[in-house]
């Protein structure tokens, strides 16, 4: 690594972007701009930003982009369903017809945007069986929060909210569910897994009561296990007066095979930025958590909703029972467009096939991975095939060689393999990892992933220091442990870093490869 931090670059006086001077007539009438600011609020100091020309900034960030492995090699990040992000979708979403559209424009001037949103709503209704979708949430967690807000409004409308203050989830359900439930004011009850890889029906029954507001569950969960008793779960919760929310983050394993509605769920959530092919942008977004629910819950949805009336689309703001806003405006409409484009390119058959291929790929990989020394599978007694991912453990390897899962992950990047996903907290299994084959990569890529892990396993058993000291071919080496957390050292800004430490640099040849310069 020798790309400087941007604060180290530039020269006083350089400019990256210019603005026209105010027209003379305007200057004359208005005079000095600073006088227009109340004196107490005028800025006295000059922000210590770099001063750079446009190409200096451009190439700095182009170089940094090259030092980001991403999908340049092979990326099988579990629970994130690495999909191809079609370039046509980007090209369409970046057209000025959308980028330059203001969300407060009159409906007449945004019929195109509203049509896209409506069309996507209709597609998701068919995929889920729900009656209405809303796209305000800027990601899956915000959709889970939307769900909590709707659950609150539903029970409040029945006068039961004070009483129904518990939400039940499972330990293998994505953390956004318990955390949004907690932030929304609910108590969270988390069910643990039994030897089948999912919580027992009895544990659910023990948790459900007249305090139950809802369950929030993944299925399949983040370990690839499908709970075959889910219909019964929903029945039990409904019987107790609670609602059932289905976090369909792991839809890839089931899409077109089953629908939330038929299982009995009242609401569900899709991640348009993973399942529907829009980019994840470094788990970063802009993303979209599409939240859908039954007609019974629809009055509580965030407003406005896009409604079709004949050939025209309008925004329905008049929703007196609505929870209001989860996020400003209509959501990330450009992400909705990308997801719509993906769904239209795949079609029903393509979507069904994607699910087949994902599950096939995962089970194909399982055979290869379990043949590698030091690799075991979660819930070894649950023999049924996992769906689109499987949770593995390197516990054996760790015990036998001292090499842990992060060592392996770092070493794999030397072969162009984007780091594997381990697990969400808590690590139910020691040294876990969870690849997800998805439908994008070819068999050769899956074979290479397996072959690289096999080779790293060989290295762990023969020359473990190669693995422990990895990576060897990346833009940087591993960070010193603890530095990003220790209050006396951690520095979340350059300002903080300057205060906490001093560093030196010299003219040296570029030391080593960026991570992105190698092949799959």
């Amino acid at each position, binding site marked *: 690594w020798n790309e400087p931090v941007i604060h180290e670059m530039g020269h006083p006086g350089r400019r990256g972007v210019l603005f026209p001077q105010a027209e003379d007539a305007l200057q004359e009438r208005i005079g000095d701009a600073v006088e227009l600011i109340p004196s107490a609020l005028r800025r006295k100091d000059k922000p210590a930003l770099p001063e750079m020309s446009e190409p200096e900034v451009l190439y700095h960030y182009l170089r940094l982009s090259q030092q980001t492995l991403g999908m340049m090699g092979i990326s099988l990040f579990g629970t994130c369903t690495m999909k191809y992000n079609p370039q046509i979708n980007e090209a369409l979403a970046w057209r000025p017809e959308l980028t330059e559209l203001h969300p407060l424009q009159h409906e007449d001037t945004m019929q195109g945007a509203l049509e896209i949103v409506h069309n996507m709503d209709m597609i998701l209704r068919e995929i889920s069986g729900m009656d209405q979708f809303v796209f305000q949430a800027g990601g899956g967690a915000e959709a889970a929060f939307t769900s909590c807000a709707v659950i609150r409004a539903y029970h409040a409308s029945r006068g039961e909210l004070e009483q129904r203050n518990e939400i039940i989830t499972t330990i293998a359900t994505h953390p956004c569910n318990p955390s949004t439930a907690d932030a929304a004011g609910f108590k969270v009850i988390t069910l643990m897994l039994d030897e089948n890889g999912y919580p027992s029906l009895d544990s659910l029954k023990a948790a459900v009561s007249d305090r139950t507001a809802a369950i929030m569950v993944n299925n399949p969960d983040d370990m690839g296990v499908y709970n075959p008793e889910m219909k019964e779960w929903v029945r039990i919760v409904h019987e107790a007066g609670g609602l059932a929310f289905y976090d369909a983050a792991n839809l890839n394993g089931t899409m077109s095979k089953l629908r939330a509605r038929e299982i009995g769920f009242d609401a569900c959530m899709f991640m348009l930025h993973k399942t529907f092919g829009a980019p994840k942008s470094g788990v970063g977004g802009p993303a979209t958590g599409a939240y859908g629910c039954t007609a019974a819950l629809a009055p509580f949805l965030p407003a406005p909703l896009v409604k079709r009336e004949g050939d025209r689309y309008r925004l329905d703001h008049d929703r007196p029972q609505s929870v209001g806003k989860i996020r400003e405006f*209509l959501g990330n409409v450009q992400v909705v467009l990308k997801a719509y484009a993906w769904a239209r390119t795949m079609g*029903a058959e393509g979507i069904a096939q994607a699910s087949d291929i994902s599950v096939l790929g995962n089970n194909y990989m399982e055979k290869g991975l379990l043949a590698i020394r030091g690799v075991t599978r979660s819930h070894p007694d649950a023999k049924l095939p996992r769906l689109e991912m499987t949770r593995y453990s390197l516990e054996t390897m760790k015990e036998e060689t001292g090499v842990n899962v992060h060592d392996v992950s770092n070493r794999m990047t030397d072969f162009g393999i984007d780091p594997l996903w381990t697990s969400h907290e808590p690590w139910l299994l020691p040294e876990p990892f969870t690849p997800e084959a998805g439908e994008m990569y070819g068999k050769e890529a899956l074979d290479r992933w397996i072959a690289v892990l096999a080779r790293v396993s060989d290295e762990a058993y023969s020359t473990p220091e190669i693995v422990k000291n990895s990576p060897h071919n990346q833009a940087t080496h591993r960070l010193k442990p603890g530095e*990003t957390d220790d209050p006396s050292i951690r520095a979340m800004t350059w*300002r903080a870093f300057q205060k906490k430490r001093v560093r030196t640099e010299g003219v040296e040849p570029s030391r080593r490869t960026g991570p992105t310069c190698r092949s799959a």
Partner: protein
Amino acid sequence: MRNVSAHPYMANSVPEIQQAMLESIGVDTVEELFVQIPQDHRLTRPLDLPPALSERELRRHVVGILAKNSTTEDNLSFLGAGIWQHHVPAAVDEIVRRNEWLTSIFGEPSSDHGRNQAWFEFCSQLGELLNLDLVALPVRSWGSAAGHAMRMAARLTGRNEVAIVRAIDPQRLSVIRNYCEPPEMANHIAIRLVAYDPATGLIDMDDLRAAVTDRTAAVYFEVPSYLGVVEHQAAEIAAIARAAGAETIVGVDPISLGVLAAPVDYGADLVVGTIQTLGVHLHAGGGVGGFIASRDEPRYAEQYPTLFISIAETLEPGEHGFGLGLFHQTSYGLRDKGNDWTGHSVYMWAIAATAYMAMMGPQGFAEVGKLILQRAHHAAQLLSGIKGVRVTFPSGFFKEFVVNFDDTGKSVADINDALRARGIFGGKDLSGDFPELGQSALYCVTEIHTLSDIERLAGALNEVV
């Protein structure tokens, strides 16, 4: 599209490849891999979706739909009110659209090095604008940032009330209300709205003093306010909050910070705001994004619900890298025991914003701030000169200002319809949300509006009122 073809997005959609994989596993059909799912969970028919399109058909279909939009590029727009038109340099678009980070996921600091550095530079540059050492990765919107900040304040103070200015974006307030939980919940945070002076748009200080008590976790106000006004009582407000043991949370539009004081310099404890004005397009509203920042004190740092990126030494002497900081306290680390929640946000806009800030530099922010002030004030003056048109708070604003049409006898809706027919998008209609302002609209004028644009607006208004 013929069924026999492999799909371009799926390398394994070739029957022979699937057959080879099935044979390797030792099963006959893919269906056998789905035995986990009981039959009575299954959908018994194919999905009924519109026919699949080839890329050419898709392009034509979507371009045809998008052509029904009429945008701020084709029209002259004065809409702001939560998302604003500013110049986005083309280099910013080029950078943010790079496939490398578009398709990345969380990896290791070594494999994500470039993206992590870019994110660190976002936090660092925003920190310079804010004069603050602790800046988190962005959250999904200004409203989301404000909501999280109030929850942080409640946790920090152990109190359950917040005082919020009345002159706030109703959408943002609605978001905040959802963060503050309904009254039925045990941890409900009560919101006390503080009136504004009808003459100036500034905070009614008497009402503020009445609102702030020993139950107050935080006072929240914005500079500039939703109605455009630069709150010059800021230091006094912060002092009142501090005296009551409350946190001062200030919301800002960072594009103003080349000319307006950084909130910490008038007493803010937590600062929130938008990042959309830093190089992000409108995207039909999909351009919004928010931030949270504060002094670099553990007391604050420990309450953030966000992700951080810290610079750190690597195991190689003299080398630095960047990694997630304080990850363990998030919901990823502690599930429901973490601070609120985290998840997909708008981190691509952090890439846009860091490129934007680097291109702007201190001089760019100073110039754009001045130009906005000049253009907005000129517009306000010009509109004031139109019969029946009044600028409600005619001084001390930044880029937005309230225009009242009561004396024209026409509604904002009618006026905006007439303007739209002339290719102009008038200001946001305030009459529903702020009935006390009568038939008023919030006009936004920025560096992109030329003198002739402003004159064109004035000319058109002259015709239609």
